[in-house]
């Protein structure tokens, strides 16, 4: 889809201003792009490359390293079903197949209405709660087949609104109070201790 829109560009510039080295802002900006489009579009990566003063190849290099940055369009809801060992033993694969039938897609696919993307996932680190499923990374523990179908129905009908669209970032954005901000000092010029640390006591003569 698209480059960052005007509003996100303003946010991007604010994010950039927090780093002495522009390239450091790359990951936050990728998140921003994913929030905008639901995935990280090629154009957005090219835009981020311009903002961070790197090449697009370097951006795609970083972006592609992280599983949670999607580089192709995904549905509003990304459903991850674990089929790793604990979940598999407790019905993870049946869960996956039930959802495949329900959504009419194979895992890895996206429904025609762009509402759901279903993925077959490795361990979600909730093995004690198997079988386990995530929708936009919100956990559903020990989920029954019918319960899972209901989640889908409720999301589709709008009965359930607690899960924001894929890519949405936390609404509480970090703002460092000025008094606690280290300011933007390039690492090679950072001679003083960060402001949040107590100042070191100067070394005594001859110690």
């Amino acid at each position, binding site marked *: 889809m698209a480059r960052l829109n005007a509003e996100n560009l303003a946010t991007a510039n604010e994010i950039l201003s927090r780093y002495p080295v522009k390239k450091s802002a790359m990951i936050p900006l990728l998140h921003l792009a994913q929030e905008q489009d639901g995935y990280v579009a*090629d154009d957005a*990566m*090219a835009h981020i*490359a311009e903002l961070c003063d*790197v*090449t*697009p*190849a*370097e*951006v*795609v*290099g970083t972006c*592609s*390293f992280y*599983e949670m940055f999607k580089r192709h369009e995904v549905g509003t809801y990304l459903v991850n079903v674990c089929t790793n060992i604990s979940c598999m033993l407790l019905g993870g694969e049946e869960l996956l197949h039930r959802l495949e039938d329900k959504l009419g897609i194979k895992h890895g696919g996206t429904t025609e209405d762009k509402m759901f993307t279903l993925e077959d996932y490795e361990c979600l680190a909730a093995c004690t709660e198997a079988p386990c499923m995530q929708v936009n990374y919100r956990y559903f523990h020990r989920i029954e087949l019918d319960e899972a179908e209901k989640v889908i129905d409720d999301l589709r009908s709008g009965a359930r609104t607690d899960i924001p669209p894929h890519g949405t970032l936390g609404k509480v954005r970090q703002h460092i109070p000025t008094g606690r901000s280290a300011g933007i000092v390039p690492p090679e010029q950072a001679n003083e201790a960060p402001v949040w640390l107590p100042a070191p006591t100067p070394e005594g003569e001859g110690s």
Partner: protein
Amino acid sequence: MTNVESTEIEGISVTVNGAEVLARPGELLIDACERNGVYIPRFCYHPRMKPVGMCRMCLVEVDTGRGMGLQPSCMITCSPDMVVETESEVTKKAQDGVLEFLLINHPLDCPVCDKGGECPLQDQTMAYGPGESRFVEEKRHYEKPIAISDNVYLDRERCILCDRCTRFAKEVAGDPLIHFQGRGNGTEVNTFPDEPFSSYFAGNTVQICPVGALTAKPYRFQARPWDLEEVQSTATIDSVGSRITVQSSRNKVLRYLGVDVDSVNWGWLSDRERFSFEAFNHEDRLADPLVRPEASMGSAKRDQLVTAPWSTALRRCAKALQDVDPNRIGVIGGARLSNEAQYMWAKLVKGVLGSDNVDAQLGDGLPADLVLGLPRATIDRACAAGGTVVLVGPDPKEQLGALYLRLRHAVIEDGVQLIELTPHSTGLSRYATHSLHPRPGEAGALARALVGDSVVESDIAGVAAADVNAVAATLKAGGPVTVVLGRSSAAESEDAVVDAAVALSSLDDVAFLSALTRGNVHGALDMGLAPGRLPGRQPLATGSSFSTAWPTMPAEAGFDTHEILQAAADGRLDTLVLLAADPINDFPDADLARQALENTPTVIAVDLFLHESAAAADVVLAAAGPGEYAGSFTNLEGRISQLNQMVTPPGTARPDWILAAELAFQLGADLELESPEQVWAELADLAPIYADVSPAALEAAAVEGIVVEGTSLFEAPAPLEAVSNDQYALRLVTRRVMYDQGTVLAHSPSSAHLSPSPKVALHPTDFERLGVAEGSDVSVSSARGAITVSVLSDSGVPRGSAVMVSHLEDARPYELIDATAVVNDVRVEPVA
């Protein structure tokens, strides 16, 4: 390089396989071992790039006091009393294991892989690896091959993720257009979608890839390594003189590889150098001499050139040269020739015919007296830590690729300060401490302000006073200064560059690295192919040893190329020899060049191709090209290195030096030189600077070659008068780019289509004033003519200048230039 003796004394003692070796301070273990004859296998480590420890092939057992443990030898520097085992059972098991892992996904397609037979992975698996594979599962598969650039192909399944190509792109070339993508087993090297690895240096990645993942289009499936014959030589396409290995099969050159020379190219080549052999294999190469039937000579309607026997062609040449007033002979060119051929031609023209109207440069260079008279610098001097480089010349990235890589490294890694005094931004601008862009014609005024003692209060040559003062302070801060001196723009006269050079030569501790770009032009100047010069950097004026040794000697200094062409155009010449020169395309006044060829009774061309000027000649002598004769080459430092023969010339084409000898013979003279050895023997006798140069000495000097020292007297001309500024015009600047449509490139299939489309570039703020819109077609006109091209906005162009790339077919800025003017103004107007 560091002095070996002194470092040996303060060497660090390390025990390798039970024997003591002395490492240099800070030396990596892998290097220290190799220098002492213990080779540790490796894939990712490359001595010209920073170590990354990606492949683990170099694991060896190391004890630094905490007991033996496996460590990657490319990542640890030697420390005192280190104990190292490179052949222990543990080390061997580690190597065996690493190879087994690498081969998990690497296909065993060696029989159809281009790298088979010269593949480090294959070789090391043979030497250190497991005999057979335990891996029966399916390997990775990818689409085969993908073109990551026009000339480089990638078979991703073969890649062992050593990070060499990607590190090269970022660290060495500064074009990080390829990158690892994905993760784990799915990691691959790739570009951003639809943004190819269009680096001028991409071909180097093919050479350093330790497997067959990267291949170059011109060599893919052309030969097997064991069928190749090879010889070391020097690249002649530009004046850096990069060292290369020339490889051929069945009398056809198939590949150039870079050779690592400490003082020159560090193993790297620009793609233009790397793939230039294609042109010399081209079917358009002249294989036989051509002659225009005699009756048609001089008449308006000229007959076609026809193939003729050598005897006929040479006799025709002799007839046009014999008993002719030496002042009515002109010779242009010679920069393509070997040093030996240049000497023979100099001897023929100056010493036998007695004419001094000889100029190897085509009005787009610098006066020989200047280049030979200023203190010379080597690339190493320019790149030495603590120094300052002042660039007054063409963009090294576009013109002198291997030099660009050295300068870039010097600035980034060794803290060399770069100051640009160029007419527009260059490929090095982003690394420069200061980029000043004086108005064309006014670089001298700027240079005088920079070296002067007083603080400047107003703009100089369009450069803000604050910038001038800042650079002046930098230059005065001390440290050696190396001026990289060349001609950036053919639309600005050489006098402007001379003016700047003279001013800069007053700095303390300054030396000059010539940035004349054309092939062996420095050899040509050293061999006397310039008006008023004799071989051995001697001026014609002094009663030199040549005046007694040669049969005759010109009475006084002759014409330069401009004057030769002018004389020819006026009908004051009888015979014009184009020694591998194409003045119609290369001289910055195409009209004059055309008239000159038209109005000269006999034009003789000695060349590889029938380019526009040769096609207008009356006799064309087919010459041998690079790789087709032995000899030597002089690079921009004055470094002489060997050229070796690999293949035979096409058809009956002959080396240039033999042509000089044959012509002399036809003229009833004898140059008394029958081989390159004899040329050097004569030169050593007659020119003190060559006392130590001989083919044997060059052989002994191996890859480094011999830097010839010595400068001649240079009389600085008076400072240039200020040029007036026409408020309504723009000042024309021409530049050359890596891939233009010059003769050689036009005949290299892999480079020919890479040339940019012609444009005129203006500063963004000039658009409104001129009433033109970015991207629209505009007319660029001077008193000479007009060209229509599209216009581009470029903040690297200073306000008031119009920059055009020369040597592109469709728009030739040289048609607009008056070569007698110091600067050329043009008007840029919208086309209706």
